[in-house]
Every structure is written in structure tokens, then in C-alpha cells.
């Protein structure tokens, strides 16, 4: 079958990537495209190469225009320091999490000392206190008092880049406001389809939360509507560790099931096949809107619509063409989507299934189709997904294939029951309760399986950033592997087999070989931390809580940081004045050998000899702890600092090299540096309002210079 769209989509994507790498201005890109198009028509021969070139240049222009063109009325043209309040329209269905409400606001005007400036364009990310009444809804026009701020870039390796994430959505500023700073001015429903879809979402949510107990309702909310914020952190982490977290993100499976379900019931109702297909298209598009229209769901919605369109037009459907059209359409209207992790993972998984499922099926041993089919699908998806997941989350789940084999069919069944619950709940709420009870039981089973699988030793392993060359060879290998005729032989040795062996050894080497000894003081909100990779591959992590409430810094920042360094084990974990529940993500994600903690930190632990199987804890004195984990002497004092005396290095002498973990408001770095080598991280601006005074060469700022290399 002819597949020209695939090459056009690849050309467009290549052009976008080239524009991102080169940072070309949109005017230059426009000139290049004009020249390319002229060349294409001038030469008279419309070959594939010139068409490829034109779409390549078009991709470059679209991306550069989106990112380098700033209109006069854009908020980016304003001096945001002078802005005291803004008028926005709530542009989507606000999300609630914890004590906050979040939404994207479309700007109407800004207010400065000089007055109101109307006609301002752009989107901002707004965070409000949850106590605001009434809570904002889609279409509300609000005046919000507060300062616009640029989101901060990540401070530590492996940390989520929120600034870049928002930039891909053309959002460059955030605003936080208390409930007293918000005033509703009116309502303007720009898109009635969206408005109606959000109203339906409210009804669907009420059916879920009245038909199941709260804990299971939250899981079903995540499963069916992709609301990951509703799911407890420890449950979400278990899904991540087992490689099954994708079921909590709306994707092709959800859309496919909705389409199948809707089609089936319309067929039962005697509706004509083509009308049923059209109605199902409206339904899946509405589902896409209420789940936030992320890259993954847009891809699967477009592909489903093409399948349904094929039914209406009585044409055959080709999965390859469908995915190509979806990719082209998404990138044409939003080129930055190429860099959205959800988009990349969704396409890698879908492409993997479409491209290699047949070959994987043939390669698997003869087992029952009930097992073989889901197993082949999982393996085909994971083959193309693994490098992306390793690079993004610095984590590969070893148990993913087995876990998916159990969890995916279960989640599919729960979804079907959920749709039946919705359908009955619209007409008769009590009947929804019957399906709710069934869903509750199966969710319990699913959570149990996930929990047990997550306890397996090394269920997920940390992976450092993969070399680009490795990723390139990996994909070339798996794209050529299904084609037995594509192979080169050098002296009777198959190049393909050699590449496979090299990749396998390279991957093991990359994971197993430890990094050079170094000391890092990562910057985390509400925490002071020092991570030491000592010679002999011993790893010591010291965390000191502070005046500021830690929040979820351990889970959201420290775990990804450690994973990005390829850490799977922590030999000694020192917890000082940090609530025990804050440290639980460390035990869930890593094997911790020894735990040392003070009385405040041990609250929440049962005081048993073992924690998480292979750990034990030993209580220290509140004010002073002398610890001697394997390779380093760590002395922790009630005062501001931690001494690390590391006998075997020339640089850290017994007089005391100091890792400075300050209290809020204090700054003894300058004083300490007169007698000691001081290691700090001045990017931790929760504690350092301005960088500490440098005293000669005695202060080593890991925030500016990266890790502190420990030399033997």
C-alpha cells in the first residue's frame, strides 16, 4: 500500500528538530522555505527529494514561527514586573489537587500602575487557593491579583523541567493567587462543544465518586479520565515501578474501548452502522476534550476517527497511514508537540505495535493465544518505548512485561465495567452502584497485584542518560530486525547479530559501571541534602529537614535526581529532622542498607530492626550523632552543618571538610570557610537569599560548578 504521508510526517518532524537545534529565526526559515518551494517548481521534476525538502523546510518554519515570533500584543512583549493583576478567561476545566486549583487562563488584559492594557494575548498558568468560592469553571472571566513570574528551570539533574513543559504549551508565565485576590467578572463560553463536554465530565465524575468508595474511585478516575492527581502518591509510584503507569494516562486503549463500547451499544439499539460510526466520532472527540487533549489522546483520537471514517466511506483502513496522518496533523498545528514526552511515548508505543507486532508474534514460543496476544503487544510496545522511558524517567522496569500481562487486561475489564456504570448512572444511579461494586472488587485485585510486583527486588532499575549513539544504533537495529533480508555480513559474521550483542553488553555496562567518586549537594525546596558516591561504590545520602515544610520534595525531586545518577542502592541513609513519611519514597524506589535517624525522623517507623526487607535503623542522639558508615565518618550536629571526614582522600582532611546544610536564614558559610573547605549549593534559594560570600578558594559551590570530584 502506498504510504506517502509517512514520509511527509518524517520530513515535517525532521524540519522541526532542525529548527529547534539551530534556533533559526522565523524570517530566515520563511526565506529558506520560499527558496525550497521555488526550486521544487523551477526544476520541473517533482521528485520525492524536493517534496521531502519542502516539507522539511515547512516544519522548520512552523516551529520557528511558533517559538521566535512574538507579537506586539503578546504578554512576552510586556515588562511583567509592572503588572499588578490580570483579566483572564478560564480556558479549560480547572484541576484540583491538594489545597490548590490549577487552570490555563487566556489573557484579556493586564493592569499596571498606568491602568488597564486591553488586547493582550497569551496564556498563563494560574494557581488558586481551593477555598475560593465559587470555584472557577470553564469560560469564567476573572480578575486575578498577583505577580506574573517565569517558571524556574530545573536545578538538579533528572528534575522535571516545568519551564520547558509550559513553553511547549506556549505558556511562559505563572501566577499564584489567594482566594481574596480573585474576582469573577462574568462568563464567556467560546467553545460550546468544550463547555458541554466539561458538563458531561462533571456528571461522569459524580457517578464514579458516588458508586465506589473514595480510594477506589480515585483509581477509577485516573484509569478512565486520566486524572493522575487524584491517585495517592504511593499507589502511583507502584504503577511506575512495575512499568504499568501508562494505564493511568488516557491513551489509545481508552479511546479504542470507548469507540468499541459505543459502537456495540448503538448496534444493539439498531442504529445504522454509518450513523453509529459518526456518533462514535463525536463521542471520542468529546472524550479527548474532557481528558485535556494531551499528545497521547489526540493521537489515538485521530487514529480512531480515521478508522470510523473508513467505515463511513467504506474504505479499508491502514494503521501505518493512520498513525502518519495523526503525527502530521498534530505537528502541523503544534510543532512543539514533537518535544512533549507524552507525544513521543505514545507514538513510539503505537509505532512499535504497528511495525513489529507480527514479527514479535512469530518469534515468541507456542503458548496459548490468550497469553501470547497480550504478551506480543506488550513486548512490541516496550521494544520501542524503553529508550524513551529510560532517558525521560531514568528508570527501566524489569518486571514490566510480566506486570503488564496481568494489569493491562484487568484495567481493560475495569474500564468496560466503568463505561457500563456511566451508561446506567446517567439514567438510574442505583444501577450504577451494582457496576461500581464490581469495579471496586477488580480494582482491589489490580492494586494488590501491582503492590506485590513492586516489592520484587530490582523491579525497576535506575539508568543514567543514554548515549545518543546507543539510542541511534538501538532503533536502527530494531527497525531492521524484522527484515531478514536486510543484513550485511563481514567475513561470515552478521552485522545485525554483532550489533545486538554490542547493544546488550553496552546496556549492561552503562547500568552496572559506577560513576566516579563525587559529592553533590542538590538544591531541593525545604530540604538540605548531600549525596556522596564514595570510592568502592559506596553511596551515602544525608538529608536534613528544615524550617520550611518539605512537601513532596523527596518524591518529586530527590528520587528522580538519584535515578538520573543511576543509583539503585543506598548504603547509608542519614535522616535528620525530617518526618519519616517524607522519606518513604526512598525506600520504595531504592534498596537502603543502613538507616540512621534522630528521634523526629524515626516517628512513623515501627522501630523494628528491619525496614523494607534489608534495612535496619539505629537511633542516634538528638543533638549529636556519631556515625561510621562503611567508608566515611559523618558527624551531624544540631548546629548548621554536617562534617564529612573522609580519611582516604587528600582533599578532605581530618580537620574537617564541611558539607554545609544551612538552617533557614542562617549563613555561616563565610565564617566556616576561614578554617574549613566548605561545600554548598547556592542554588538552594530557600536558604540562601543571595549566594554566600566567597572566601578564597575554600568555598566550593556545587550549584555553580556541578559535582565536587573526590580524588584518591
Amino acid at each position, binding site marked *: 500500500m502506498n504510504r506517502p504521508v509517512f514520509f511527509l510526517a518524517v520530513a515535517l518532524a525532521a524540519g522541526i528538530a532542525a529548527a529547534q537545534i539551530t534556533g533559526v529565526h522565523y524570517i530566515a526559515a520563511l526565506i529558506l522555505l520560499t527558496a525550497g518551494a521555488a526550486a521544487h517548481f523551477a526544476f520541473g521534476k517533482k521528485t520525492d527529494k524536493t517534496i521531502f525538502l519542502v516539507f522539511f523546510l515547512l516544519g522548520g518554519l512552523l516551529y520557528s514561527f511558533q517559538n521566535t515570533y512574538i507579537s506586539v500584543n503578546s504578554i512576552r512583549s510586556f515588562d511583567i514586573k509592572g503588572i499588578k493583576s490580570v483579566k483572564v478567561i478560564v480556558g479549560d476545566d480547572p484541576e*484540583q489537587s491538594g489545597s490548590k486549583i490549577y487552570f490555563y487562563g487566556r489573557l484579556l488584559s493586564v493592569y499596571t500602575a498606568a491602568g488597564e492594557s486591553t488586547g493582550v494575548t497569551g496564556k498563563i498558568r494560574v494557581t488558586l487557593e481551593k477555598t475560593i468560592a465559587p470555584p472557577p469553571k470553564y469560560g469564567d472571566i476573572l480578575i486575578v491579583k498577583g505577580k506574573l513570574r517565569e517558571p524556574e528551570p530545573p536545578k538538579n539533574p533528572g528534575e522535571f523541567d516545568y519551564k520547558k513543559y509550559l513553553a511547549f504549551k506556549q505558556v511562559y508565565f505563572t501566577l499564584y493567587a489567594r482566594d481574596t485576590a480573585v474576582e469573577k467578572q462574568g462568563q464567556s463560553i467560546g467553545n460550546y462543544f468544550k463547555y458541554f463536554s466539561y458538563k458531561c465530565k462533571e456528571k461522569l465524575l459524580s457517578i464514579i465518586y458516588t458508586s465506589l468508595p473514595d480510594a477506589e474511585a480515585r483509581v477509577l478516575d485516573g484509569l478512565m479520565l486520566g486524572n493522575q492527581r487524584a491517585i495517592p502518591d504511593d499507589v502511583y509510584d507502584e504503577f511506575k515501578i512495575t512499568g504499568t503507569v501508562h494505564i493511568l494516562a488516557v491513551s489509545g486503549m481508552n479511546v479504542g474501548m470507548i469507540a*468499541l463500547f459505543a459502537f456495540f451499544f448503538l448496534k*444493539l439499539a439498531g442504529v445504522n452502522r454509518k450513523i453509529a460510526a459518526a456518533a462514535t466520532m463525536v463521542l471520542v472527540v468529546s472524550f479527548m476534550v474532557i481528558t485535556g487533549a494531551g499528545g497521547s489522546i489526540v493521537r489515538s483520537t485521530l487514529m480512531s476517527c480515521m478508522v470510523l471514517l473508513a467505515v463511513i466511506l467504506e474504505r479499508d483502513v491502514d494503521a501505518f497511514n493512520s498513525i502518519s496522518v495523526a503525527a502530521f496533523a498534530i505537528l502541523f498545528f503544534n510543532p512543539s508537540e514533537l518535544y512533549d514526552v507524552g507525544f513521543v511515548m505514545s507514538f513510539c508505543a503505537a509505532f512499535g505495535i504497528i511495525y513489529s507486532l507480527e514479527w514479535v508474534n512469530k518469534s515468541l514460543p507456542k503458548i496459548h493465544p490468550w497469553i501470547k496476544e497480550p504478551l506480543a503487544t506488550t513486548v512490541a510496545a516496550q521494544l520501542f518505548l524503553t529508550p524513551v522511558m529510560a532517558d525521560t524517567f531514568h528508570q527501566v522496569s524489569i518486571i514490566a512485561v510480566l506486570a503488564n500481562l496481568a494489569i493491562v487486561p484487568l484495567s481493560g475489564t475495569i474500564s468496560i465495567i466503568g463505561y457500563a456504570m456511566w451508561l446506567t448512572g446517567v439514567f438510574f444511579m442505583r444501577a450504577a452502584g451494582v457496576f461500581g461494586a*464490581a469495579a471496586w472488587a477488580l480494582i482491589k485485585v489490580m492494586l494488590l497485584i501491582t503492590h506485590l510486583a513492586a516489592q520484587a527486588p530490582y523491579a525497576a532499575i535506575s539508568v543514567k542518560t543514554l548515549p545518543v549513539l546507543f539510542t541511534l544504533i538501538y532503533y536502527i537495529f530494531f527497525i531492521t530486525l524484522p527484515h531478514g533480508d536486510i543484513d550485511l555480513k563481514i567475513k561470515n559474521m552478521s552485522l545485525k547479530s554483532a550489533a545486538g550483542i554490542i547493544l546488550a553488553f553496552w546496556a549492561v555496562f552503562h547500568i552496572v559501571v559506577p560513576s566516579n567518586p563525587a559529592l553533590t549537594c542538590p538544591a531541593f525546596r525545604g530540604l538540605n541534602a548531600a549525596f556522596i558516591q564514595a570510592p568502592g561504590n559506596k553511596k551515602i545520602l544525608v538529608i536534613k529537614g528544615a524550617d520550611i515544610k518539605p512537601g513532596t520534595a523527596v518524591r518529586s525531586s530527590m528520587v528522580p535526581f538519584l535515578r538520573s545518577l543511576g543509583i539503585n542502592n543506598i548504603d547509608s541513609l542519614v535522616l535528620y529532622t525530617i518526618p519519616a513519611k517524607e522519606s518513604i519514597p526512598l525506600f520504595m524506589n531504592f534498596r537502603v542498607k543502613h538507616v540512621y535517624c534522630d528521634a523526629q525522623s524515626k516517628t512513623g517507623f515501627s522501630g523494628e530492626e528491619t525496614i523494607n526487607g534489608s534495612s535496619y535503623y539505629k537511633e542516634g542522639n538528638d543533638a549529636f550523632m556519631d556515625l561510621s558508615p562503611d567508608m566515611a565518618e559523618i558527624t551531624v550536629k544540631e548546629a548548621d552543618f554536617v562534617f564529612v571526614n573522609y580519611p582516604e582522600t587528600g582533599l578532605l582532611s581530618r580537620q574537617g571538610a564541611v558539607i554545609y546544610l544551612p538552617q533557614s536564614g542562617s549563613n555561616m558559610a563565610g565564617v566556616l570557610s576561614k578554617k574549613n573547605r566548605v561545600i554548598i549549593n547556592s542554588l538552594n534559594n530557600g536558604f540562601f537569599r543571595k549566594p554566600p560570600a566567597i572566601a578564597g578558594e575554600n568555598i566550593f559551590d556545587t550549584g555553580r560548578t556541578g559535582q565536587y570530584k573526590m580524588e584518591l
Partner: protein
Amino acid sequence: MHFTKEEKSILITILAAALLGIIINVFTAYKTGLKVNKPDGGPVLISINSAAAEELEELPGIGAVTAQRIVKYREVNGKFKDIGGLKEVKGITQKKFDKLRQYITL
């Protein structure tokens, strides 16, 4: 009517789920246990058209008497057409309504 393999799977799943759900509801102490004002947030929406008085009492500012009034209002006037209709019930002022509106739905 001819069903495909996938459609048969859906039908069997729905029937089995209905049976399982009935067994759980009849033979176990299973309850939805809806709660309002959870400390860690999340959408909790009580249907003012179908919730019993006990559930309505969980709303902020709604006691036993007001909950009974809401149920009585429904019996006399039929279902609420929009959530603002709750203000028609004696005892629910605008101020009280503003506090609980984020927890209710039709």
C-alpha cells in the same frame, strides 16, 4: 444479530460484572462511604437529586433538619433543574450555598 469476538467479550464482561456487583451488594458489608472535605483533596460531588438525607448531612453547613428539607423539597417539587435551585430550600442562604456549591452536582 451477529456479534464480533470483541462485542461478545464486552457483553460477557458486562453480564458477569452485573452478577458480581449484585452479589457484593447483597452478601457483603460493601459501602461507597462517600466523604466530603478530604484533607488531600480530589473531587467529591454529592448529587442533590439522588443523595439520601444522611449523605446530604456531610455537606458543610447542612445538618439533619436542612437535609430533610432538601429531601422533602424534591418529593414535593421534583428534581432540581440546576444546583442554584438548592437556594429555594428553607435554611440555605446564598452564603451557605457558596460554601457548599463546590461539593454538589445534579
